[in-house]
């Protein structure tokens, strides 16, 4: 199954895939949603939820029942009442046997203490109203919280009250949800709205657009990113460090390695490859790492376990290193205006970049080199795109320093080189080479390591099918991974096409319908759009060298070059002797494209789209 997922990830990443429709969905009406959050003097929080939902369609019941109430080691259910009222006015109570408990673990987790108390309503027809009132008591790990305000379902009435914040009280509405108003009070805030429409964010919208807006709040003295850093450092002080087995392991790994870079690489390699990624998130263990000695003993851990271990190994080797809280999320980012740890979901490591002889594409920002110990592939010079262009909180010497990680699109992408000999009959033979680097390269390298040769072969064929003309026949497929900085894989094959193009008449030059790929977002994506476009930056190049059956051909006036801050598209067509060379390059340089930059995005996207629609025009001798 892992292999299938890898194959599909790789193919989806490289090929233009299309699916018919998403999973069944529902859109009931939330008649009333009221959340009352009371912050108590002892730091605990009482959260009372009052919910009334009208079922408007046949899918709605299945969407709302069972309803999950989120609990955890620090969140307990104090009270719960639920019922369903049919269109006839008859009310059916939810009984105890309709409550169940299930723990959930993410696909990346082996185990988690996250628990849902599920409420199964009596089945009622369309037009019925589900009612739910519950109270959860929480002792938050960090003095703060957040509440999503919008949803896919329309909301008639929304009221969220947070009170009792006391000293250090702060709050912020992040995101856009027209119709929401906020009224601040001493130590609290009340957010109200009515007639909120159901949200249907467009394609490639930020992940948080599903919620429209989020109310973030916090209290106490851990204000500012510095305060968050101090809070996290406080957690780290609870973790036993500097154990001799860890120090010994560091010394063992760097013995005979004189240089700083070599030492860094050796220790990073150990944390990445010898400590396997296994996530167990129990209670505060979702934030607090496991003691590094335990991780060294068992040789497994999650991101923060691996990161803290790497930090300690590096320090033992005389290399300064600091833990970094970050968000791994290709579709979203941290609200830098409201410091809190809840927005982070990942931990990496920062070291001073100086003196490491890094390449120009190394993930360096603010003087730090960022290292992700959960990456199993790549060297110092590559950072997974999921943590590129993200706010990173470097926890250094009791401070929290917020730094944005760089975008390194130049190493994310593909280089396709095709050399073909075109016969007068239209048949073409030659070679194809595809270099995959960055994330596509990493996916392929993992597949190469894990899959059977025939599965790799099949994947290569699928990938080539996305680049080459239909009907292509491939032989002599071979592949190799290049160790080093960014993951880099080269795949090669001999190609044969029974009919690349056909000649209009005997003796004439066959047409050369080289396949094109739309790699930039469709210009239509920007129609009437107000939300940012979130994409994965990349840089792809394609070179076709076709040896034509006749000489003295021309291919003029087909060069295109458009570029700006957001991206670029270029096409260069030339003929030298019998050799036709077509080079195309598409590049996306930003991940998060605000509406102000839409004209720039449209400019490059249109250049690609319009160019790709044109035939390749060749004239040989007097024949157009």
């Amino acid at each position: 199954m892992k292999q299938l997922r890898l194959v599909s990830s790789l193919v989806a990443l490289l090929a233009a895939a299309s699916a018919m429709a998403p999973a069944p969905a529902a859109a009931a009406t939330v008649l009333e949603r009221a959340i009352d959050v009371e912050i108590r003097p002892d730091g605990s929080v009482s959260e009372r939820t009052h919910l009334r939902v009208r079922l408007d369609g046949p899918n709605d019941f299945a969407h709302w029942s069972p309803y999950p109430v989120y609990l955890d080691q620090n969140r307990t259910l104090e009270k719960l009442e639920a019922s369903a009222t049919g269109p006839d006015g008859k009310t059916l109570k939810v009984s105890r046997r309709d409550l169940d408990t299930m723990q959930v673990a993410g696909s990346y987790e082996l185990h988690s203490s996250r628990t849902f108390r599920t409420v199964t309503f009596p089945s009622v027809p369309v037009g019925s109203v589900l009612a739910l009132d519950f109270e959860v008591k929480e002792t938050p790990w960090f003095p703060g919280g957040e509440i999503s305000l919008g949803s896919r379902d329309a909301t008639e009435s929304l009221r969220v009250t947070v009170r009792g914040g006391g000293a250090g009280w702060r709050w912020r509405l992040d995101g856009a949800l027209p119709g929401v108003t906020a009224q601040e009070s001493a130590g609290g805030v009340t957010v109200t709205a009515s007639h909120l429409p159901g949200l249907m964010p467009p394609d490639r919208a930020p992940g948080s657009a599903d919620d429209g807006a989020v109310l973030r709040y916090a209290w106490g003295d851990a204000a500012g990113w510095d305060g968050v850093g101090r809070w996290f450092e406080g957690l780290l002080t609870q973790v036993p460090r500097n154990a001799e087995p860890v120090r010994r392991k560091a010394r063992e790994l760097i013995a005979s390695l004189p240089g700083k870079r070599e030492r860094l690489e050796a220790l990073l390699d150990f944390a990445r490859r010898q400590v396997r990624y296994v996530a167990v998130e129990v209670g505060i263990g979702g934030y607090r790492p496991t003691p590094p000695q335990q991780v060294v003993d068992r040789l497994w851990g999650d991101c923060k376990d691996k990161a803290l271990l790497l930090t300690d190994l590096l320090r033992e080797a005389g290399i300064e290193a600091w833990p970094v809280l970050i968000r791994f999320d290709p579709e979203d980012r941290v609200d830098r205006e409201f410091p809190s740890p809840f927005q982070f979901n990942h931990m990496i490591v920062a070291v001073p970049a100086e003196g490491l002889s890094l390449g120009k594409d190394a993930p360096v920002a603010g003087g730090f080199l960022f290292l992700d110990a959960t990456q199993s592939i790549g060297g110092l010079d590559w950072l997974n795109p999921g943590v590129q262009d993200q706010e990173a909180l470097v926890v250094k010497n009791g401070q929290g320093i917020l730094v944005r990680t760089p975008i390194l699109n130049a190493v994310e992408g593909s280089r396709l080189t095709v050399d073909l000999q075109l016969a007068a009959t239209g048949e073409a033979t030659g070679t194809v080479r595809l270099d995959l680097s960055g994330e596509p390269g990493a996916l392929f390298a993992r597949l190469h390591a894990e899959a059977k040769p025939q599965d790799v072969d099949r994947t290569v064929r699928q990938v080539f099918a996305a680049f080459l003309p239909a009907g292509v026949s491939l032989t002599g497929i071979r592949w190799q991974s290049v160790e080093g900085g960014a993951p880099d894989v080269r795949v090669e094959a001999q190609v044969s096409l029974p009919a690349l193009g056909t000649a209009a008449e005997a003796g004439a030059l066959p047409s050369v319908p080289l396949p094109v790929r739309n790699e930039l977002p469709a210009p239509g994506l920007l129609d009437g759009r107000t939300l940012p476009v979130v994409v994965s930056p990349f840089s792809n190049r394609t070179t076709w060298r076709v040896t034509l059956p006749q000489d003295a051909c021309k291919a003029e006036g087909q060069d295109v070059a458009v570029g700006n801050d957001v991206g670029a598209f270029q096409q260069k067509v030339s003929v030298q002797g019998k050799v036709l060379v077509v080079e195309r390059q598409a590049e996306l340089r930003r991940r998060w494209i605000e509406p102000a930059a839409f004209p720039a995005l449209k400019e490059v996207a249109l250049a690609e789209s319009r160019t790709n629609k044109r035939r390749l025009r060749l004239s040989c001798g007097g024949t157009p």
Partner: protein
Amino acid sequence: MKPGLLTFFVLLTAVPGVLRAQTPEFPPITGEERALTSVPGEPNAPAVVLFRKGEFLMEGYGRLFGSFDSHLRAQTRVKILTESGKSNGEIAIAHSDFARLEGFSARTVLPDGTIVPVPARNSSARPRGEGTFVTAVAFPSVQVGAILDYQYELVFDSPIFIEPWYFSDEEMPVLRSEIVYKIASDWRMRYWSRTSLGVKIEKEEASSSKGRVLRVWAEDLPAIPREPLGPPFADLAAQVLLLPEARISATQTVRLLENWSTATYLIEQLYEPVRQRDKGVAKRAREIAGSGSRLQKIEALYRFVRDEIATEPGTGLSVGVDPGGSLDKILSGRRGNNTEKALLLQAMLKAIDVDSALVWAADRGRGLVDPHIPNPSWFDAVFVLVAVNGQRVLLDPADPALALGQFPAGYEGTPALVPNPTKPLGLFIPTKPLEQNLRRTDLELTLDTRGRLSGRGTLLLTGHPAREKIRREADPARTAADWKEWLESRFRDFQIAEVKAVELVEESKVTVTWALGQREEEVLGDEVSLVPSAPLGPLTQPFVQPAAERRTGVVIEYPDREETVLHLCWPEGWKLESRPRETTLNAAAGWLAVSTELREGERTLVYTRRRDLPQRDFLPQEYEAIRSLFAGLETSDAQKIVLIRR
């Protein structure tokens, strides 16, 4: 009812396990196991199952005499062969209130022989609701060359264990797998096995004072190949099943899964008490049915159970039911699992004097059924069979997207059973003709003098393609929005407008209409290229492997037809530069025809494309035929229509 029979399924649930097996030692690691670094014939295997052993102690065998429990002891040894094989260092074991997990122990044995036990804190049982759990375990110190040992016991409150023992593994090759069945002598069992990929299953049997011991094993099993649109795991995996036929004592013979008659009788004993508790069901049925024709009444009841009674997931045997349940609870609670809904529908039909029968049906996606083996666990759903105008009609009340007489595609063409204890009736679920599973688009496009395309399109879905789309969204606006999004992805250069989607559940039909116009900024002015197969095409070949490398057959979802008709017209001053070549493929796997008709005088081109797939299952030797069919379609779809200004 014979209480003795029911006991096996139900009454024992009240009796806790009385004996606990001692946790055995792990077998010593052999020199061969230590030396193993790769598996012949399985290049790049990241890990290998050195052995997987099971021991099933059926209630009444040996020292467990007097206990109502049966025990399945499982022991597995895995060796890590490559760095990526370390990802096999986590396991998850599913268990439940019915199959309780006991005596779990595990260890990692390092290449130097050091034993690292798995501490208790490395494992945890996670409730998944409905009395089910999963215990997840992370092995420590996993490295290349390490051996992972684990063992556990599942304790059942019943002697009946009718799940197969799989010798094969989905991801790893297996050097040896065996199951030992220990059965008290008063049980009569039936042996069944399935194998493929050249795996040989062997067995030996012995008797003792405690009972009989049947040892079954297989060696050198390849990892099950997972190929695109390949058969399900259960088709390919080597497996064995020991079915309890009867229990014979001095005073009586209790017949269990001896034949379909006794098997269905057993399950009927579960249904009967549920059926008897039917207060208010008949009255409600008559109210709902109203006073229409017989067919209208049937439809009304079917729609009620399908739409108004929520379908809950079942646990355990799919065709089974909790005998403590009742029809009136299902009706008043407005929810029930697949089987409970079928029982309710049957009772409601009975209330309006419509005779019906239950039908146990199997999902092809879960593996092939062997109808010669009377095992109720072959089946995944319960349908209701009624006669309408002299025709047999099957009703599946579980899926709100199903019309009367429709059922999910996976059930078509599979063996089914009318579970009548006196006369069980085997049948095959009918397969819908391919032309009823239709995806058809009609597109009319006109090029204006500026070189801009615009027009209208219609998509018609019937049968299974329609069912897949029906009621996926809550309201027409969202449904239309979804279709618009899809159309925009298929016509990148165009603005899509006026999207209307009409879903007719009872006719299994979806019609989507839209208007489309090329974006002004996409207009080139002197040239137009068009993918004529859109929006259904262009197809990407799903079968990229050469036939020589394909090991398994092909199982598609259902036979179907795909049709595209495009009418394209253009103004004076433009000419047709290129169009797709005529293609006709009448292969064993299906049929493909692509044609274009140019009406020069009218400056019109009519493009038609039709692809038929007449069957669902293709044998490995038929792979090349289906591959060729799709290759032909892919090649044709890649050919564009090009118009240029003169």
